[in-house]
Protein backbone atom coordinates (compact mmCIF):
# COMPACT_ATOMS: atom_id res chain seq x y z
CA UNK A 1 0.00 0.00 0.00
CA UNK A 2 2.81 2.34 1.08
CA UNK A 3 4.78 1.34 -2.05
CA UNK A 4 1.92 2.33 -4.32
CA UNK A 5 1.72 5.70 -2.49
CA UNK A 6 5.44 6.41 -3.18
CA UNK A 7 5.09 5.46 -6.86
CA UNK A 8 2.15 7.85 -7.17
CA UNK A 9 4.03 10.76 -5.57
CA UNK A 10 7.06 10.12 -7.74
CA UNK A 11 4.96 10.02 -10.89
CA UNK A 12 3.25 13.32 -10.00
CA UNK A 13 6.65 14.93 -9.24
CA UNK A 14 8.01 13.69 -12.56
CA UNK A 15 5.00 15.07 -14.44
CA UNK A 16 5.35 18.46 -12.65
CA UNK A 17 9.08 18.64 -13.55
CA UNK A 18 8.34 17.81 -17.20
CA UNK A 19 5.55 20.46 -17.34
CA UNK A 20 7.88 23.11 -15.80
CA UNK A 21 10.66 22.19 -18.22
CA UNK A 22 8.27 22.37 -21.16
CA UNK A 23 7.03 25.86 -20.24
CA UNK A 24 10.49 27.17 -19.45
CA UNK A 25 11.68 26.11 -22.91
CA UNK A 26 8.60 27.57 -24.56
CA UNK A 27 9.10 30.96 -22.84
CA UNK A 28 12.77 31.16 -23.60
CA UNK A 29 13.83 34.50 -25.30
CA UNK A 30 14.19 34.62 -29.12
CA UNK A 31 17.87 35.46 -29.02
CA UNK A 32 18.65 32.42 -27.03
CA UNK A 33 20.22 30.84 -30.06
CA UNK A 34 22.63 33.75 -30.52
CA UNK A 35 23.54 33.68 -26.85
CA UNK A 36 24.18 30.07 -27.26
CA UNK A 37 26.38 30.82 -30.26
CA UNK A 38 28.31 33.45 -28.33
CA UNK A 39 28.69 31.00 -25.54
CA UNK A 40 29.87 28.43 -27.99
CA UNK A 41 32.09 30.96 -29.70
CA UNK A 42 33.53 32.01 -26.39
CA UNK A 43 34.21 28.45 -25.57
CA UNK A 44 35.80 27.85 -28.95
CA UNK A 45 37.87 31.02 -28.71
CA UNK A 46 39.03 30.18 -25.25
CA UNK A 47 39.86 26.72 -26.37
CA UNK A 48 41.70 28.11 -29.38
CA UNK A 49 43.64 30.60 -27.30
CA UNK A 50 44.49 27.96 -24.79
CA UNK A 51 45.47 25.67 -27.59
CA UNK A 52 47.58 28.40 -29.23
CA UNK A 53 49.21 29.29 -25.95
CA UNK A 54 49.93 25.67 -25.43
CA UNK A 55 51.35 25.39 -28.93
CA UNK A 56 53.42 28.54 -28.47
CA UNK A 57 54.69 27.30 -25.16
CA UNK A 58 55.53 23.99 -26.73
CA UNK A 59 57.32 25.67 -29.63
CA UNK A 60 59.22 28.00 -27.30
CA UNK A 61 60.28 25.13 -25.13
CA UNK A 62 61.38 23.24 -28.18
CA UNK A 63 63.34 26.30 -29.30
CA UNK A 64 64.88 26.70 -25.90
CA UNK A 65 65.81 23.06 -25.90
CA UNK A 66 67.25 23.47 -29.40
CA UNK A 67 69.10 26.67 -28.56
CA UNK A 68 72.67 25.94 -29.48
CA UNK A 69 75.16 28.48 -28.23
CA UNK A 70 78.81 28.80 -29.18
CA UNK A 71 81.76 30.89 -28.00
CA UNK A 72 83.30 33.66 -30.10
CA UNK A 73 86.13 31.42 -31.28
CA UNK A 74 83.75 28.59 -32.12
CA UNK A 75 81.59 31.04 -34.06
CA UNK A 76 84.69 32.40 -35.77
CA UNK A 77 85.79 28.94 -36.92
CA UNK A 78 82.29 28.14 -38.16
CA UNK A 79 82.14 31.45 -39.98
CA UNK A 80 85.59 31.02 -41.47
CA UNK A 81 84.69 27.60 -42.91
CA UNK A 82 81.55 29.09 -44.43
CA UNK A 83 83.48 32.09 -45.82
CA UNK A 84 86.00 29.77 -47.44
CA UNK A 85 83.19 28.37 -49.55
CA UNK A 86 82.51 31.79 -51.04
CA UNK A 87 85.98 32.80 -52.20
CA UNK A 88 89.33 31.50 -53.25
CA UNK A 89 90.93 34.31 -51.28
CA UNK A 90 91.90 33.78 -47.66
CA UNK A 91 89.00 35.18 -45.58
CA UNK A 92 90.31 37.58 -42.95
CA UNK A 93 88.16 38.78 -40.09
CA UNK A 94 86.83 42.34 -39.98
CA UNK A 95 84.62 41.87 -36.93
CA UNK A 96 82.44 39.42 -35.04
CA UNK A 97 79.62 40.46 -32.70
CA UNK A 98 77.15 38.50 -30.65
CA UNK A 99 73.58 39.62 -31.14
CA UNK A 100 70.13 39.03 -29.74
CA UNK A 101 67.98 36.44 -31.39
CA UNK A 102 64.64 38.05 -30.75
CA UNK A 103 62.74 35.06 -32.09
CA UNK A 104 63.72 33.23 -28.90
CA UNK A 105 63.16 34.59 -25.39
CA UNK A 106 66.36 36.14 -24.07
CA UNK A 107 67.64 35.05 -20.70
CA UNK A 108 69.74 36.75 -18.10
CA UNK A 109 72.16 33.83 -18.25
CA UNK A 110 72.80 34.26 -21.98
CA UNK A 111 76.53 34.73 -22.48
CA UNK A 112 77.41 33.93 -18.85
CA UNK A 113 79.63 31.10 -20.05
CA UNK A 114 80.86 33.06 -23.07
CA UNK A 115 78.46 31.39 -25.49
CA UNK A 116 75.62 32.97 -27.50
CA UNK A 117 73.30 31.44 -30.05
CA UNK A 118 73.45 34.33 -32.55
CA UNK A 119 76.56 36.00 -34.00
CA UNK A 120 77.27 38.29 -36.96
CA UNK A 121 80.59 38.10 -38.77
CA UNK A 122 82.24 40.13 -41.50
CA UNK A 123 85.14 38.77 -43.54
CA UNK A 124 87.17 40.53 -46.19
CA UNK A 125 90.21 39.70 -48.24
CA UNK A 126 93.66 41.23 -48.06
CA UNK A 127 93.16 42.72 -51.53
CA UNK A 128 89.70 44.17 -50.88
CA UNK A 129 87.99 42.35 -53.73
CA UNK A 130 85.45 40.42 -51.66
CA UNK A 131 83.32 41.10 -48.60
CA UNK A 132 81.38 38.30 -46.95
CA UNK A 133 78.65 38.65 -44.33
CA UNK A 134 77.83 35.59 -42.27
CA UNK A 135 75.51 34.91 -39.38
CA UNK A 136 75.72 32.08 -36.91
CA UNK A 137 72.29 30.90 -35.87
CA UNK A 138 72.04 28.08 -33.35
CA UNK A 139 75.45 26.74 -34.26
CA UNK A 140 74.90 26.93 -38.01
CA UNK A 141 76.85 29.34 -40.23
CA UNK A 142 74.80 31.00 -42.98
CA UNK A 143 76.15 33.33 -45.66
CA UNK A 144 73.85 36.33 -45.84
CA UNK A 145 75.65 38.39 -48.49
CA UNK A 146 78.74 38.34 -50.65
CA UNK A 147 80.06 41.42 -52.40
CA UNK A 148 82.78 41.55 -55.02
CA UNK A 149 84.66 44.48 -56.47
CA UNK A 150 86.84 44.43 -59.56
CA UNK A 151 88.93 47.39 -58.40
CA UNK A 152 89.60 45.96 -54.91
CA UNK A 153 87.83 48.83 -53.16
CA UNK A 154 85.84 46.86 -50.61
CA UNK A 155 86.67 46.99 -46.94
CA UNK A 156 89.69 44.76 -46.39
CA UNK A 157 89.94 41.89 -43.94
CA UNK A 158 92.64 42.20 -41.33
CA UNK A 159 92.83 39.34 -38.88
CA UNK A 160 93.54 35.64 -39.06
CA UNK A 161 92.02 33.27 -36.51
CA UNK A 162 95.51 32.69 -35.13
CA UNK A 163 95.73 36.41 -34.24
CA UNK A 164 93.12 35.93 -31.53
CA UNK A 165 94.42 34.43 -28.33
CA UNK A 166 91.45 34.86 -26.00
CA UNK A 167 87.95 33.45 -26.21
CA UNK A 168 84.72 34.93 -24.90
CA UNK A 169 84.47 32.15 -22.31
CA UNK A 170 87.71 33.26 -20.64
CA UNK A 171 86.96 36.94 -21.03
CA UNK A 172 83.53 36.76 -19.41
CA UNK A 173 84.98 34.99 -16.36
CA UNK A 174 87.31 37.92 -15.80
CA UNK A 175 84.49 40.36 -16.46
CA UNK A 176 82.32 38.70 -13.81
CA UNK A 177 85.27 38.77 -11.37
CA UNK A 178 85.48 42.52 -12.02
CA UNK A 179 81.84 42.86 -11.00
CA UNK A 180 80.08 42.95 -14.37
CA UNK A 181 76.41 41.92 -14.17
CA UNK A 182 74.28 40.44 -16.94
CA UNK A 183 71.66 42.54 -18.71
CA UNK A 184 68.09 41.90 -17.65
CA UNK A 185 65.88 40.86 -20.60
CA UNK A 186 62.85 42.26 -18.76
CA UNK A 187 64.16 45.81 -19.29
CA UNK A 188 63.10 46.44 -22.86
CA UNK A 189 65.19 49.60 -23.33
CA UNK A 190 68.40 47.73 -22.61
CA UNK A 191 69.96 46.18 -25.66
CA UNK A 192 72.20 44.03 -23.52
CA UNK A 193 70.47 40.81 -22.55
CA UNK A 194 72.94 38.73 -20.57
CA UNK A 195 76.52 39.36 -21.73
CA UNK A 196 77.57 40.39 -25.22
CA UNK A 197 80.86 40.16 -27.10
CA UNK A 198 82.62 41.85 -30.02
CA UNK A 199 86.01 41.26 -31.59
CA UNK A 200 87.26 43.84 -34.06
CA UNK A 201 89.67 46.66 -34.75
CA UNK A 202 89.02 49.79 -32.69
CA UNK A 203 90.45 53.30 -33.14
CA UNK A 204 92.06 53.60 -29.72
CA UNK A 205 94.39 56.40 -30.84
CA UNK A 206 92.54 59.48 -32.12
CA UNK A 207 95.70 60.66 -33.86
CA UNK A 208 95.99 57.56 -35.98
CA UNK A 209 93.81 55.64 -38.38
CA UNK A 210 95.45 52.42 -37.20
CA UNK A 211 93.26 50.04 -35.28
CA UNK A 212 93.86 47.73 -32.37
CA UNK A 213 92.32 44.25 -32.25
CA UNK A 214 90.21 44.09 -29.11
CA UNK A 215 87.72 41.71 -27.58
CA UNK A 216 84.94 43.59 -25.80
CA UNK A 217 82.65 42.15 -23.15
CA UNK A 218 79.54 44.20 -22.46
CA UNK A 219 77.22 43.90 -19.50
CA UNK A 220 75.79 45.98 -16.70
CA UNK A 221 77.72 47.96 -14.13
CA UNK A 222 77.56 46.63 -10.54
CA UNK A 223 76.77 50.22 -9.56
CA UNK A 224 73.68 50.37 -11.75
CA UNK A 225 70.52 51.08 -9.77
CA UNK A 226 67.69 48.64 -10.23
CA UNK A 227 65.84 50.83 -12.69
CA UNK A 228 62.93 49.86 -14.85
CA UNK A 229 63.89 51.81 -17.96
CA UNK A 230 67.59 51.68 -18.58
CA UNK A 231 70.55 50.20 -16.77
CA UNK A 232 74.06 51.59 -16.59
CA UNK A 233 76.29 49.63 -18.90
CA UNK A 234 79.85 48.38 -18.47
CA UNK A 235 82.49 47.33 -20.98
CA UNK A 236 85.78 45.56 -20.57
CA UNK A 237 88.30 45.50 -23.41
CA UNK A 238 90.90 42.77 -23.84
CA UNK A 239 93.83 42.86 -26.21
CA UNK A 240 92.74 39.98 -28.41
CA UNK A 241 96.31 39.14 -29.33
CA UNK A 242 97.63 38.86 -25.78
CA UNK A 243 94.49 38.29 -23.72
CA UNK A 244 95.37 41.14 -21.35
CA UNK A 245 92.76 43.55 -20.05
CA UNK A 246 93.35 46.89 -21.75
CA UNK A 247 90.66 49.00 -20.15
CA UNK A 248 87.33 48.85 -18.40
CA UNK A 249 84.66 51.50 -18.26
CA UNK A 250 81.28 51.92 -16.65
CA UNK A 251 78.48 54.32 -17.47
CA UNK A 252 77.63 56.72 -14.68
CA UNK A 253 74.59 58.45 -16.19
CA UNK A 254 73.81 61.33 -18.52
CA UNK A 255 74.91 64.95 -18.55
CA UNK A 256 72.44 67.84 -18.92
CA UNK A 257 72.48 67.48 -22.71
CA UNK A 258 71.71 63.79 -22.59
CA UNK A 259 75.22 62.62 -23.42
CA UNK A 260 76.27 59.41 -21.73
CA UNK A 261 78.92 59.79 -19.07
CA UNK A 262 81.46 57.05 -18.50
CA UNK A 263 84.32 56.59 -16.10
CA UNK A 264 87.32 54.32 -16.36
CA UNK A 265 87.54 51.50 -13.88
CA UNK A 266 90.90 51.18 -12.22
CA UNK A 267 92.53 47.92 -13.19
CA UNK A 268 94.19 45.68 -10.62
CA UNK A 269 97.52 44.47 -12.00
Amino acid at each position, binding site marked *: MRKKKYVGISSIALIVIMVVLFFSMKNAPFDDSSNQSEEQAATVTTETINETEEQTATTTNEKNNDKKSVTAMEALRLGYSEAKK*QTEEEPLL*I*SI*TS*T*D*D*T*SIPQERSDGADGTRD*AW*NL*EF*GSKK*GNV*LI*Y*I*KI*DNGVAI*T*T*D*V*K*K*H*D*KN*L*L*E*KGHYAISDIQIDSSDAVKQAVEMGMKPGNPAIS*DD*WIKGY*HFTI*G*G*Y*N*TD*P*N*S*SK*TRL*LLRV*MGISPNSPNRE*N*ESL*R*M*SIFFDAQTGEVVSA*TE*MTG*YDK*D*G*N*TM*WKNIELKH
Partner: protein
Amino acid sequence: MKLFKAVTGVTLSSVMLLTFASGAFAQPLSQVSTGTQGASVTLNGQTTYFSGSQIERLAQVNNVDPNSLREAIEAGPDADGKFSPFSKLPRLDNGISEAQLVENSKQKLSSTGESLIQPAETSITSSQFASTTIGALAATTTTKSNQDSTAYNATGNNTANGNPPKLGIVAVHRVKDITSGSTSNSPVIPFGTVLNITNVDIYLPNSGYRDIFTVDDTGSGPNRTSYWIDVYFGTDTTSAINYGVTTVSYTY
Protein backbone atom coordinates in the same frame (compact mmCIF):
# COMPACT_ATOMS: atom_id res chain seq x y z
CA MET B 1 111.86 88.66 -90.52
CA LYS B 2 112.14 84.90 -90.11
CA LEU B 3 113.54 85.43 -86.65
CA PHE B 4 110.61 87.78 -85.82
CA LYS B 5 108.09 85.15 -87.01
CA ALA B 6 109.77 82.44 -84.99
CA VAL B 7 109.85 84.55 -81.82
CA THR B 8 106.20 85.56 -82.31
CA GLY B 9 105.19 81.93 -82.91
CA VAL B 10 107.00 80.69 -79.80
CA THR B 11 105.49 83.50 -77.72
CA LEU B 12 101.95 82.79 -78.89
CA SER B 13 102.38 79.05 -78.32
CA SER B 14 103.70 79.67 -74.80
CA VAL B 15 100.76 81.93 -73.98
CA MET B 16 98.29 79.30 -75.21
CA LEU B 17 100.06 76.54 -73.27
CA LEU B 18 100.12 78.60 -70.09
CA THR B 19 96.44 79.39 -70.51
CA PHE B 20 95.52 75.71 -70.77
CA ALA B 21 97.89 74.74 -67.95
CA SER B 22 96.31 77.32 -65.67
CA GLY B 23 93.08 75.35 -65.94
CA ALA B 24 91.06 78.31 -67.12
CA PHE B 25 89.15 76.06 -69.53
CA ALA B 26 88.92 73.16 -67.07
CA GLN B 27 86.66 74.91 -64.58
CA PRO B 28 83.25 73.28 -64.26
CA LEU B 29 80.40 75.26 -65.72
CA SER B 30 78.65 75.32 -62.38
CA GLN B 31 81.59 76.97 -60.65
CA VAL B 32 80.25 79.49 -58.18
CA SER B 33 81.71 82.83 -57.25
CA THR B 34 83.91 82.84 -54.16
CA GLY B 35 82.16 85.29 -51.89
CA THR B 36 82.60 83.07 -48.84
CA GLN B 37 85.64 83.15 -46.61
CA GLY B 38 87.65 80.02 -46.01
CA ALA B 39 87.48 78.07 -42.77
CA SER B 40 89.69 75.66 -40.89
CA VAL B 41 89.20 73.12 -38.16
CA THR B 42 91.76 71.50 -35.90
CA LEU B 43 91.06 67.97 -34.72
CA ASN B 44 93.54 65.94 -32.72
CA GLY B 45 96.26 68.46 -33.48
CA GLN B 46 95.70 68.30 -37.23
CA THR B 47 94.36 71.37 -39.03
CA THR B 48 92.31 71.05 -42.19
CA TYR B 49 91.62 74.14 -44.27
CA PHE B 50 88.74 74.66 -46.68
CA SER B 51 88.96 77.58 -49.08
CA GLY B 52 86.01 79.86 -49.75
CA SER B 53 85.44 78.31 -53.17
CA GLN B 54 85.55 74.81 -51.68
CA ILE B 55 82.95 75.77 -49.10
CA GLU B 56 80.71 77.33 -51.73
CA ARG B 57 80.97 74.25 -53.89
CA LEU B 58 80.24 71.92 -50.94
CA ALA B 59 77.26 74.08 -50.02
CA GLN B 60 75.97 73.96 -53.58
CA VAL B 61 76.36 70.20 -53.94
CA ASN B 62 74.58 69.57 -50.63
CA ASN B 63 72.08 72.42 -50.90
CA VAL B 64 72.99 74.23 -47.69
CA ASP B 65 73.86 77.84 -46.97
CA PRO B 66 77.63 78.44 -47.53
CA ASN B 67 78.01 80.90 -44.67
CA SER B 68 76.29 78.52 -42.26
CA LEU B 69 78.59 75.74 -43.45
CA ARG B 70 81.64 77.90 -42.93
CA GLU B 71 80.47 78.75 -39.40
CA ALA B 72 79.77 75.09 -38.64
CA ILE B 73 83.29 74.14 -39.77
CA GLU B 74 84.83 76.93 -37.71
CA ALA B 75 82.78 75.89 -34.66
CA GLY B 76 84.66 72.57 -34.50
CA PRO B 77 83.48 69.60 -32.44
CA ASP B 78 80.05 69.82 -30.81
CA ALA B 79 79.03 69.08 -27.22
CA ASP B 80 79.11 65.37 -28.01
CA GLY B 81 82.77 65.67 -28.98
CA LYS B 82 81.98 64.95 -32.61
CA PHE B 83 82.81 67.00 -35.66
CA SER B 84 79.79 66.72 -37.95
CA PRO B 85 79.03 70.16 -39.43
CA PHE B 86 76.47 68.98 -41.98
CA SER B 87 74.34 67.33 -39.28
CA LYS B 88 73.51 70.81 -37.95
CA LEU B 89 72.59 72.52 -41.22
CA PRO B 90 69.13 72.67 -42.76
CA ARG B 91 68.78 72.05 -46.46
CA LEU B 92 67.75 75.13 -48.38
CA ASP B 93 64.22 75.33 -49.65
CA ASN B 94 65.12 76.44 -53.15
CA GLY B 95 63.42 73.87 -55.32
CA ILE B 96 66.43 71.65 -55.97
CA SER B 97 65.06 68.18 -56.49
CA GLU B 98 66.12 65.04 -54.65
CA ALA B 99 67.14 63.60 -58.03
CA GLN B 100 69.54 66.50 -58.56
CA LEU B 101 71.02 65.99 -55.08
CA VAL B 102 71.51 62.31 -55.84
CA GLU B 103 73.23 63.31 -59.07
CA ASN B 104 75.41 65.72 -57.08
CA SER B 105 76.47 62.86 -54.81
CA LYS B 106 78.46 61.39 -57.69
CA GLN B 107 80.83 64.34 -57.39
CA LYS B 108 81.68 63.53 -53.78
CA LEU B 109 85.22 62.21 -53.52
CA SER B 110 87.30 60.99 -50.60
CA SER B 111 90.57 62.69 -49.71
CA THR B 112 92.33 60.03 -51.77
CA GLY B 113 90.07 60.41 -54.81
CA GLU B 114 87.60 57.52 -54.46
CA SER B 115 83.93 58.16 -55.04
CA LEU B 116 82.40 58.30 -51.56
CA ILE B 117 79.01 57.00 -52.63
CA GLN B 118 78.20 54.39 -55.21
CA PRO B 119 74.79 53.05 -56.16
CA ALA B 120 74.41 49.63 -54.60
CA GLU B 121 73.82 47.93 -57.93
CA THR B 122 76.85 49.20 -59.80
CA SER B 123 80.48 48.34 -59.43
CA ILE B 124 79.90 46.24 -56.37
CA THR B 125 78.15 43.08 -57.40
CA SER B 126 76.24 40.85 -55.08
CA SER B 127 76.68 37.18 -55.71
CA GLN B 128 73.89 34.68 -56.09
CA PHE B 129 73.40 34.58 -52.34
CA ALA B 130 70.42 36.37 -50.92
CA SER B 131 71.18 39.80 -49.55
CA THR B 132 69.53 39.88 -46.17
CA THR B 133 69.89 41.85 -43.02
CA ILE B 134 72.35 40.25 -40.65
CA GLY B 135 71.31 42.19 -37.61
CA ALA B 136 69.48 40.83 -34.65
CA LEU B 137 67.55 37.86 -35.88
CA ALA B 138 64.30 39.70 -35.53
CA ALA B 139 61.04 38.26 -36.73
CA THR B 140 60.22 41.46 -38.63
CA THR B 141 62.28 43.80 -40.77
CA THR B 142 61.97 47.55 -40.42
CA THR B 143 62.63 49.81 -43.41
CA LYS B 144 63.55 53.48 -43.23
CA SER B 145 63.47 55.20 -46.60
CA ASN B 146 64.94 58.52 -47.76
CA GLN B 147 66.76 59.38 -44.56
CA ASP B 148 69.56 61.92 -44.28
CA SER B 149 73.06 60.66 -43.65
CA THR B 150 76.11 62.72 -42.76
CA ALA B 151 79.67 61.83 -41.72
CA TYR B 152 81.53 62.60 -38.50
CA ASN B 153 85.01 62.54 -37.08
CA ALA B 154 85.58 61.62 -33.48
CA THR B 155 87.90 63.60 -31.29
CA GLY B 156 89.15 60.96 -28.92
CA ASN B 157 85.88 60.43 -27.06
CA ASN B 158 84.27 57.05 -26.73
CA THR B 159 80.89 56.45 -28.33
CA ALA B 160 77.66 56.89 -26.40
CA ASN B 161 77.69 53.13 -26.04
CA GLY B 162 81.02 53.34 -24.23
CA ASN B 163 83.34 52.07 -26.94
CA PRO B 164 86.29 53.50 -28.79
CA PRO B 165 84.89 54.28 -32.24
CA LYS B 166 85.52 51.95 -35.15
CA LEU B 167 84.82 52.19 -38.84
CA GLY B 168 81.43 50.66 -39.60
CA ILE B 169 79.50 52.36 -36.79
CA VAL B 170 76.87 55.09 -37.02
CA ALA B 171 75.25 57.52 -34.60
CA VAL B 172 71.49 58.12 -34.49
CA HIS B 173 69.16 60.53 -32.74
CA ARG B 174 68.13 60.09 -29.13
CA VAL B 175 64.44 59.35 -28.61
CA LYS B 176 63.93 62.77 -27.02
CA ASP B 177 65.32 64.43 -30.17
CA ILE B 178 62.46 63.23 -32.31
CA THR B 179 59.65 62.63 -29.83
CA SER B 180 57.90 65.65 -28.42
CA GLY B 181 57.76 65.57 -24.63
CA SER B 182 60.11 62.62 -24.29
CA THR B 183 63.12 62.78 -21.97
CA SER B 184 64.58 59.45 -23.03
CA ASN B 185 68.27 59.52 -23.94
CA SER B 186 68.07 56.08 -25.53
CA PRO B 187 68.97 55.88 -29.21
CA VAL B 188 65.99 55.79 -31.59
CA ILE B 189 67.41 52.53 -32.92
CA PRO B 190 68.90 50.35 -30.17
CA PHE B 191 72.67 50.08 -29.83
CA GLY B 192 74.01 47.02 -31.56
CA THR B 193 71.38 47.07 -34.28
CA VAL B 194 72.82 46.29 -37.71
CA LEU B 195 71.60 48.53 -40.53
CA ASN B 196 71.71 47.31 -44.10
CA ILE B 197 71.85 50.29 -46.47
CA THR B 198 69.96 49.34 -49.59
CA ASN B 199 70.46 52.18 -52.07
CA VAL B 200 74.17 53.00 -51.87
CA ASP B 201 77.53 51.70 -50.75
CA ILE B 202 79.62 54.10 -48.71
CA TYR B 203 83.39 54.41 -49.02
CA LEU B 204 85.07 54.61 -45.62
CA PRO B 205 88.49 56.32 -45.64
CA ASN B 206 91.49 53.99 -45.46
CA SER B 207 89.12 51.08 -45.60
CA GLY B 208 86.73 50.58 -48.53
CA TYR B 209 83.09 50.28 -49.49
CA ARG B 210 80.52 48.77 -47.18
CA ASP B 211 76.74 48.81 -46.79
CA ILE B 212 76.40 47.25 -43.33
CA PHE B 213 76.66 49.54 -40.31
CA THR B 214 76.12 49.09 -36.57
CA VAL B 215 74.42 51.62 -34.28
CA ASP B 216 76.93 52.44 -31.53
CA ASP B 217 76.57 56.15 -30.94
CA THR B 218 74.09 58.99 -30.57
CA GLY B 219 74.43 62.45 -31.98
CA SER B 220 72.80 65.77 -32.53
CA GLY B 221 71.21 66.36 -35.92
CA PRO B 222 68.61 69.04 -35.25
CA ASN B 223 67.86 69.65 -38.91
CA ARG B 224 68.03 66.09 -40.11
CA THR B 225 65.33 63.49 -40.71
CA SER B 226 64.06 61.44 -37.76
CA TYR B 227 66.06 58.35 -38.68
CA TRP B 228 69.17 60.23 -39.81
CA ILE B 229 72.45 58.37 -39.48
CA ASP B 230 75.85 59.93 -38.86
CA VAL B 231 78.57 57.69 -40.31
CA TYR B 232 81.90 57.46 -38.48
CA PHE B 233 84.74 58.47 -40.82
CA GLY B 234 87.71 58.06 -38.49
CA THR B 235 90.27 60.86 -38.62
CA ASP B 236 89.73 61.88 -42.24
CA THR B 237 88.15 65.32 -41.94
CA THR B 238 88.31 66.13 -45.66
CA SER B 239 86.41 62.97 -46.61
CA ALA B 240 83.81 63.54 -43.89
CA ILE B 241 83.14 67.08 -45.11
CA ASN B 242 83.08 65.97 -48.74
CA TYR B 243 80.47 63.34 -47.85
CA GLY B 244 78.06 66.16 -46.97
CA VAL B 245 74.42 65.12 -46.75
CA THR B 246 73.44 61.98 -48.62
CA THR B 247 70.02 60.36 -48.77
CA VAL B 248 69.98 56.70 -47.76
CA SER B 249 67.42 53.97 -47.28
CA TYR B 250 68.07 51.07 -44.97
CA THR B 251 66.57 48.05 -43.27
CA TYR B 252 67.16 46.44 -39.89
